[in-house]
């Protein structure tokens, strides 16, 4: 029997606010001592009260709009109780009944639309490190603001699961709501997978793979679960609904400690936090701050930049925004330079922090178009635009300093060609060409290039040579 996989994904996104969701302590614990970014509120000392960070509300609006979601005018917080050392309060503050972000959708590069069920604000938990016989608790991450994005089960392949996670990552970074550093857990994915016989209108029993932190592991875990569940079903057994962990090293999923069921969380309204009520005007004003999203860039550049190049470039929001600023006729060349020169050489991280201005890039493209720069020289000048030593000098100045500008002046070129043709050592080649030996033109062009110290435009030289030798 053929089985159809159905996949739904929950994604946790850490918001890049300066302070935590409920206290005025530093939210950026990167490179800091364990437990050094912790307030008495995070420690849940008696009498401590949470105070909502307004910036997290604003970022949630941007995140929601990036996913074409409705923003709910009324939302509030609830307590989700569980016992674990990563949470001194004994509960997580989340939005169970009234989330801030409503229904929407994310469109994948393939055109597949994945609907968003809702997304809500909540506080992160602390970090546990397990040792032999004991665990250590670092509370730096407690109440880092998160939005949890819950998709509808609209995904039906491992590839689409991968693409959905990657598109979410792009959307969140374009919206500017997260650092998007996957390695450090800024975005984490829980993936629900089930199989149903083809044509069935009922979904099968699902498993949930928790805490995946790369697109590749999402794809591999889904592939693995589809294969594993197919085997289970084909042998006539039933898939057990359970929570699984994933190991990149073994490439396998394995059962985890069974979590409490919903009723055990004893959800109750959070009495310490008054509700959020957003006016239409406020939502509109905040939404207007959303910059162009990947979908808009696809529509804008789709006819100029080949799809595979564009999909690579779309991983870099700053680069796309710069491309949006340069002259339209220059886009094709500049996007090629970025893909072939920078990204191909894996220099991207350091280089992309400080991009050349739109004017510099447009000027470079123009010089290339006018054949003042050969394609090799264009790449050379492009790289120099990032060079701290040459910063701000502009493409023309740099090309001049490096002596890379091609001689295009026909009169001047003709003089050089005449000099070369007058040389006895080119005599034989000239005769050969006149006798129909086409390929010696290359030798003659080379001689002219040499005479011009590499500054002549080879195609112009060839044209003049052909005229003169006709």
């Amino acid at each position: 029997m053929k089985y159809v996989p159905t996949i739904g994904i929950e994604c946790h996104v850490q918001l890049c606010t300066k302070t935590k969701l409920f206290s005025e302590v530093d939210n950026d614990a990167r490179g800091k001592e364990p437990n050094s970014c912790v307030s008495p509120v995070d420690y849940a000392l008696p009498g401590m009260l949470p105070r909502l960070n307004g910036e997290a509300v604003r970022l949630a609006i941007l995140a929601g709009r990036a996913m074409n979601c409705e923003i709910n005018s009324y939302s509030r917080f609830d307590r989700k109780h569980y016992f674990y050392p990563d949470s001194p309060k004994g509960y997580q503050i989340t939005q169970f009944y009234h989330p801030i972000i409503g229904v929407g959708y994310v469109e994948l590069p393939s055109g597949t639309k994945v609907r968003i069920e809702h997304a809500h604000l909540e506080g992160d938990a602390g970090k546990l490190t397990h040792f032999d016989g004991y665990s250590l608790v670092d509370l730096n991450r407690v109440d880092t603001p998160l939005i949890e994005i819950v998709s509808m089960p609209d995904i039906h392949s491992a590839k689409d699961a991968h693409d959905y996670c990657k598109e979410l990552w792009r959307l969140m970074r374009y919206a500017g709501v997260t650092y998007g550093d996957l390695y450090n857990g800024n975005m984490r994915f829980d993936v629900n997978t089930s199989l149903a016989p083809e044509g069935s209108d009922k979904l099968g029993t699902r498993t949930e793979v928790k805490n995946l932190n790369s697109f590749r592991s999402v794809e591999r875990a889904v592939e693995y679960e589809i294969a594993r569940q197919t085997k289970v079903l084909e042998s006539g057994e039933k898939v057990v609904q359970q929570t699984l962990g994933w190991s990149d090293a073994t490439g396998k999923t394995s059962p985890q400690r069974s979590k409490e069921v919903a009723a055990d969380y004893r959800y109750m309204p959070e009495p310490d936090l008054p509700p959020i009520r957003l006016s239409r005007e406020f939502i509109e004003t905040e939404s207007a701050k959303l910059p162009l999203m990947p979908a808009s860039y696809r529509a804008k550049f789709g006819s100029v930049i080949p799809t595979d190049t564009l999909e690579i470039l779309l991983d870099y929001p700053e680069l796309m925004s710069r491309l949006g600023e340069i002259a339209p006729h220059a886009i094709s060349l500049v996007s090629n330079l970025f893909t072939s020169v920078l990204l191909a050489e894996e220099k991207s991280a350091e280089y992309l922090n400080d991009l050349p201005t739109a004017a510099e890039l447009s000027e470079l493209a123009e010089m290339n178009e006018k054949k003042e720069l050969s394609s090799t020289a264009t790449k050379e000048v492009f790289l120099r635009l990032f060079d701290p030593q040459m910063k701000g000098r502009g493409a023309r100045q740099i090309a001049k300093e490096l002596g890379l500008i091609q001689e295009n002046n026909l009169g001047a070129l003709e003089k050089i060609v005449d000099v070369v043709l007058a040389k006895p050592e080119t005599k034989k080649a000239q005769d050969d060409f006149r006798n129909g030996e086409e390929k010696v033109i290359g030798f003659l062009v080379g001689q002219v290039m040499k005479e011009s110290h590499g500054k002549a435009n080879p195609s112009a030289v060839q044209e003049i040579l052909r005229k003169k030798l006709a």
Partner: protein
Amino acid sequence: MEIKREDIIHLGKLSNFDLSEKEIESLSKDISEIIKYISQLDELNTDGVEPTYQVFEMENVWRSDEILEQDASMEQLLALTKEEKDNQIKVPKVL
């Protein structure tokens, strides 16, 4: 509502309490009493009444996103824990 022995054991597990036979027995009785007392509220007819989440009619109590010096230092907070190691809180392994 009657509280069964299994309910107490389940609640104990959720709260990570090791309960003795005697405690299970007395807790069953106590919790049943507490729920019976609270259940008096069920006598009220609340059909069509909006749920009340809070009694103060406040909304949008937000603060600005600025880091403030904390009243308690890392050392003070860690001093409150039973055991620490390398600036972290040491706990029995819970899985």
